[in-house]
């Protein structure tokens, strides 16, 4: 943790709302990525971001600086997102019409059949991600969405680098199997 960040956190611990705003400016996109990665739904992801920063403001006094600040924040984001996903239950797998994200920008991607295919693919990714155990899903999101190193992931998840590698490996393997099975079922259907 560099000096500026230490000072920023110390100001926030003293209840300075401007310090919280600076932390928000620095980290909101990262928190949003984690939130969206877990729930794959815009409104819910925004609610999670809001909840995480309010929680942070309330609990930052308990941050003693033993771990890196971003791992502290990421852990908070992950736990909040998982809580939301649990509360949402199956409802996060909304109908195709409600799916957001993956809006192609131009050319052939604008064709309705192409849009539908991409939406279907996105839906399948959602379902597959949800079928993974939480720790494996988080490993995948930390690595593929946030681009964290093994060391950073181990800190954020509170485990060893070996465990991180194992979770990533099994997540990728399971993802591959689930996607293959879905494709087979579709062909049969």
């Amino acid at each position, binding site marked *: 943790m560099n000096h500026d960040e230490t000072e920023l956190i110390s100001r926030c611990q003293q209840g300075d709302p401007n310090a919280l705003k600076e932390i928000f400016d620095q980290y909101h996109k990262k928190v949003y990525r984690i939130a969206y*990665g877990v729930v794959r739904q*815009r409104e819910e992801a925004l609610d999670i*971001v809001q909840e995480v920063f309010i929680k942070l403001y309330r609990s930052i006094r308990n941050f003693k600086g033993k771990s890196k600040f971003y791992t502290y924040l990421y852990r908070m984001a992950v736990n909040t997102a998982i809580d939301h996903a649990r509360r949402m239950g199956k409802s996060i797998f909304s109908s195709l019409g409600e799916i957001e994200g993956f809006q192609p920008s131009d050319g052939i991607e604008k064709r309705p059949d192409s849009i539908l295919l991409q939406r279907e693919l996105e839906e399948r990714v959602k379902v597959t991600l949800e079928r993974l155990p939480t720790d494996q899903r988080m490993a995948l999101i930390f690595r*593929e969405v946030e681009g964290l190193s*093994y060391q950073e992931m181990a800190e954020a998840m509170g485990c060893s680098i070996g465990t991180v590698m194992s979770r990533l490996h099994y997540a990728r393997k399971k993802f*591959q199997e689930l996607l293959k099975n879905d494709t087979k079922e579709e062909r049969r259907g």
Partner: protein
Amino acid sequence: MKDACSAVSKLLEKYFDQEVTKEERSFVEAHLLDCSACRDALRFMEELRTLIKVPVEEAVQKEDFPWVWQKIERGIRLEERPTFWETLQSWLQISSIFQRKVWIPFVATIAVLLFVTTQFIIKKTPSYSEPYVVEYIESETYNIMIFESEKAKTTVIWLFEVPEQKSSTS
């Protein structure tokens, strides 16, 4: 080739995640040139990353985060809004006099003054009740009128003569 594949497969994910050493990188890259199965495995990981990452990045681009910050600020302000008791406490701490804890005798003095003043005001404006006639008796020589005042508990008997005779009262 199979032995090389099994050796590389242990490193392939680390290579993809950019966690290998220089030597490991050279070893994997040399193998990838000749092995389509390992290239496929690598391509799958790339596709998976795209599938997971692209929708997230597109969602980030669309968001209006200043609006989210406003909601957070509002949420914090709501949490910090003081309760009635906290407001009262802070009001009591406004004046330095109150901070010195002089407010207990101060309030007691005000209460005593109020009590005394109230008594005085009540005494100054007593409720006054008029005496009223209870009985009036006429006779040939005297007429009698009896008054009663409830408040003073007094009874007045008034005796007066009929006309052309001496009158007397008691």
